[in-house]
């Protein structure tokens, strides 16, 4: 009898607990999303704007498909254009090997996905530059009390500055100094990238310096007893010890970089998602709001993916994960 009842409990009780755990992992987030969609669907038509009612999830979904369609169409046209150009050039060269053939890029407007790609490239470049500056500087600040005292006020002052304040200055400086007949990068790219760098380097800098300053005194003593040289000390003790803190900083920085980039692109009219949003806003068609909403969701989703990617790298690199 008892064996039967325990078996029965095992058969029913344990799986149901598993089921509960799974439900919590999958079902609850799903429920949250569904509730949000429901609220959005019901509330959106109530909000009237000069461009018609605020788009609900259905319209936004449709516009998402539309944007994808536009992208594939554009790609096809671009492929055709390039094929024609190549054929024409081949013909010209066949007639006259000395002919001056030009290879032009497809002149069509960038699609939504092109803008996403531009934005991703810019944010990664700006973030990489910020990290290259912030980590070594943070190590220096963390190791040296004098450095810390000297640099700390600067960090505190520049940390809260909005990208919108930097942007005009960066634009002017880039226009004045980045002069070249055959520029490797677009000026708009350089401007956005530097703005992203200026705004996103602070969390990494602060976290790195805190992590470096917080190396366990015991480990510092081990390093002293072993008479490690300065560089060996930094490489073998300080850096590994502060890797978890550095990564926390990097993750915050990347999030800020992504937010700043959209604002910078919007204001600077440099290509990317921000420009897409701004163009749609200026365009003011009946679909504009839906298209902007697609961009909003894309921005959020990409930001989430970027953070996940950093988390994955952190798990690979950090010893405490």
């Amino acid at each position, binding site marked *: 009898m008892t064996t039967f009842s325990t078996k029965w409990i095992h058969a029913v009780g344990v799986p149901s607990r598993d089921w509960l755990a799974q439900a919590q992992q999958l079902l609850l987030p799903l429920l949250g999303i569904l509730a949000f969609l429901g609220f959005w669907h019901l509330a959106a038509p109530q909000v009237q704007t000069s461009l018609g009612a605020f788009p609900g999830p259905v319209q936004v979904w449709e516009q998402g498909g539309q944007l994808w369609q536009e992208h594939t169409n554009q790609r096809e046209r671009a492929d055709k254009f390039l094929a024609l150009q190549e054929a024409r050039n081949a013909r010209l060269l066949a007639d006259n090997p000395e002919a001056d053939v030009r290879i032009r890029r497809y002149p069509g407007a960038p699609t939504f996905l092109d803008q996403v790609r531009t934005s991703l490239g810019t944010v990664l470049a700006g973030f990489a530059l910020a990290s290259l500056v912030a980590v070594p500087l943070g190590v220096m600040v963390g190791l040296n009390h004098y450095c810390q005292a000297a640099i700390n006020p600067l960090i505190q002052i520049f940390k809260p500055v909005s990208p919108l304040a930097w942007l005009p200055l960066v634009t002017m400086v880039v226009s004045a100094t980045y002069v070249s007949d055959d520029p490797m990068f677009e000026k708009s790219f350089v401007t956005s990238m530097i703005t992203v760098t200026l705004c996103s380097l602070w969390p990494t800098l602060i976290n790195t310096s805190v992590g470096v300053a917080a190396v*366990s005194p*015991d480990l510092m*003593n081990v390093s*002293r007893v072993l*008479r490690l040289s300065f560089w*060996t000390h930094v490489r073998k003790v300080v850096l590994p*010890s502060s890797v978890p803190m550095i990564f926390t900083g990097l993750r915050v920085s990347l999030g800020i970089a992504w937010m700043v980039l959209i604002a910078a692109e919007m204001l600077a009219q440099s290509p990317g998602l921000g420009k897409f949003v701004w163009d749609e806003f200026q365009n003011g068609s009946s679909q504009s709001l839906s298209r902007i909403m697609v961009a909003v969701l894309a921005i959020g989703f990409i930001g989430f993916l970027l953070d996940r990617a950093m988390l994955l790298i952190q798990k690979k690199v950090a*010893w405490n994960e």
Partner: protein
Amino acid sequence: MNKTHLELTGVEMAFDTPKGPFVALDNVNLKIRKGEFVSLIGHSGCGKSTVLNIVAGLLQASKGGCVLNGHEVNAPGPERAVVFQNHALMPWLTVYENVELAVRQVFRKSMNRQARKQWITHNLELVNMAHAANKRPGEISGGMAQRVGIARALAMKPSVLLMDEPFGALDALTRAHLQDSLMEIQQELNNTVIMITHDVDEAVLLSDRIIMMTNGPGATVGEDLHIDLPRPRNRVTLADDARYVNYRQEVLSFLYEKQRKLESLNNRRPGNTSAAPKTQASATA
């Protein structure tokens, strides 16, 4: 053998505090012969660790100094290897790599790669930790980690091995086990050892000499007790040995009668309740 190996002369240590200098040590004199196992015992806050840190070179004495093999000590170095209370292993390195860091630093010129590898393995075998060579400190117990800390220190071939309450953070059984291992290793290598301890039994069992320190401020050497028990020593048979009981009695009487520490429990200086802050440090590390 009878020549003085390590000598502390007139050591005074004063720390600057907002209320003026705090004199922790006053006129500490100590001579230690080669191969001697010396324990420093005393109440919390009497400056035992300060003495050890001065010998290690991690602290500079305000007055007086420390001479090892005829050379003045004024900086830390691997010839005075330290075993820390909380093992102080790098948590991101494996057991092997932790010892390797020390061995490569000390012997990178005098040993080739193969010899270093053998030497690392040899030291891990000495403390019975070769089986866990590829584990991280977080994956082994506190007692095992402390063994690795000892292996790392021994692998530096130090003239003096400095141990700062090496078994303080361990449970009683693990502690007894490691004490036995340490006695065996000491028998084999005949190192000069200075060990800080709170544990009277540990001091009597392991030491050739017990240096008992008076209470601070201005702590100094109170009594110097030579433990004349034959080696190898066995904790079980010694427990009934009249000489052992007598030595133990002497230390206890020094600590609890002559140097009785009058302090109420809630009036302790937080820095002196030795175990708590250090465990915290290791947790954050």
